[in-house]
């Protein structure tokens, strides 16, 4: 195991985040605060409690998930796309590193960043609403697993994309809509039954539901289903990454 290399990549990526601290930390915090002002205060004052939880508190897990998904994907996709784009990737590809170590370095860094970000947003939310976390361990587990899974997805997107447009396309056209429609701001019960069925095909629903359960003990789908889904995503992402490296797809002509 070339731990020096994993460390080099990991630290390089973390240093990059440090240089763009404003972008990587401050802006998500500001936009989350805006969500709270708009959804929590303005709209929340007109909505009664959802399943015994105030609306402001109800949306916290969904908001964290929203940020976690979008930031994991954008962090990780950019982290691998950029060296590919500038050509500096040659060095990584010529180094005595295994695929696993490359993924560990890049995805590990992206996942750490978004997990930290998730916690920062949790701290920010604490200013606006009264938070209780019923199952802190499960909360962390969901947080970390989601960060890793979607960083892997971002990594895949970063390798697949051969232009900046494509790099933006997937997050814009797929991730964001799925998260908004994934029950971040409402309980699925609020929807007409046809739409409830459709929504269950949205994988993000399971993440938000499970994450919310770890806070308040309420969920749209069973926690076991949520956990299973997280691991299914993780497995699929790992399989795709494995295929990418085995075939050299877009990395080794």
């Amino acid at each position, binding site marked *: 195991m070339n731990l020096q290399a994993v460390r*080099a990549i990991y630290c390089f990526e973390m240093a990059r985040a440090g240089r763009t601290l404003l972008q990587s930390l401050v802006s998500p915090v500001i936009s989350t605060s805006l969500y709270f002002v708009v959804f929590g205060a303005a709209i929340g004052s007109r909505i009664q409690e959802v399943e015994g939880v105030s609306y402001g508190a109800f949306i916290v897990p969904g908001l964290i998930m929203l940020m976690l998904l979008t930031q994991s994907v954008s962090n990780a996709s950019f982290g691998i796309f950029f060296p590919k784009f500038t050509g500096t990737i040659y060095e990584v590809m*010529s*180094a*005595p590193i295994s695929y696993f170590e490359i993924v560990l370095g890049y995805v590990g860094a992206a996942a750490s960043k978004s997990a930290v970000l998730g916690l920062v947003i949790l701290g920010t939310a604490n200013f606006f609403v009264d938070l209780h976390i019923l199952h802190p361990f499960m909360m962390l587990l969901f947080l970390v697993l989601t960060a890793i899974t979607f960083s892997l997805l971002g990594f895949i997107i970063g390798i697949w994309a051969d232009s900046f447009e494509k790099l933006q396309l997937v997050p814009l056209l797929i991730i964001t809509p799925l998260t908004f429609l994934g029950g971040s701001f409402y309980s699925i019960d609020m929807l007409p039954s046809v739409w409830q069925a459709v929504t269950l095909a949205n994988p993000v629903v399971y993440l938000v539901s499970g994450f919310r359960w770890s806070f308040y003990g309420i969920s749209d789908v069973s926690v076991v289903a949520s956990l299973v889904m997280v691991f299914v995503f993780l497995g699929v992402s790992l399989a795709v990454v494995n295929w990418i490296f085995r075939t050299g797809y877009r990395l080794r002509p």
Partner: protein
Amino acid sequence: MSHPTATVSSPATASSAPAAEPAPVIEIIGLSKRYDSGFEALKQVDLEIRRGEIFALLGPNGAGKTTLISIICGLVNASAGQVLVDGHDNVSAYRAARAKIGLVPQELTSDAFETVWNTVRFSRGLFGRKPDDAHIERVLKSLSLWDKRKNKLITLSGGMKRRVLIAKALAHEPEILFLDEPTAGVDVALRRDMWEVVRELRASGVTIILTTHYIEEAEEMADRIGVINGGEIVLVREKQALMRQLGSKQLTLQLQQPLASVPPALSHYPLALDEGGSVLVYTYDASDPNAQGQVPISTLLNDIEAAGIRFKDLHTKQSSLEEIFVKLVRERQ
């Protein structure tokens, strides 16, 4: 003709080679590359690189130089064939193989916002070596980059960026260094500095493989020269032998009186008149004094004197590697 290296090895090279040849540091066997586009960039390449030598790979644009280097370094997958780096297969034993290699790519690439120091340190870590700031300091100093160590890469000139790439390649103390056109776009003074660095590296036991379009560079630096064209190695030879063997020499005499034609008394020599008869040119093979129709220069000069021809000046010229190279590539087209 599937093994061009075998066909070009002449008795001259065979006799000059040491009796017990040490194992080559890189062994390339039947290497072929067909890109996804269907283009065949390498065709059955066989090549051995000797330990500690400077090997210059010459060839026109698109000949396959970068492709060959990229396969050895693990950037491109081969379609067929094998590469052994110090005995390690570069696919199945990629860790051992790649750890020995440093690569300076043809394209200038850099992480714009990194500092020189950090980027070189990063390279060392990437190759699995423990941090060694003293070594990095030595490398930066040898490349005159020490003063720039805190500069961001984006602030450096092209020549300096090139040197940073060399520093990165040397950060993990490789035994083999690939330089893909290291002096492209580098001014004369800096080019001389780089040659010096390369010579020092060779002196410390590093094997160096470089590609270049500056023939003088190969002439100046290389121990052996390989010529690649259209994905095939068309020649591999000791530089000295190559220059001797393929280099014909010319003796040029500036005449006092122009001649209308070569006098009959001298017609058995391969003589030619030039510049309206004021220059007499004698072409001969310097490497083989006993070649057919060839006599010692002094004999020729005596005969010219006897024919009543007076000359003001004379000089000789050996054909450069460049001429040899151009001739070779043309012959193959």
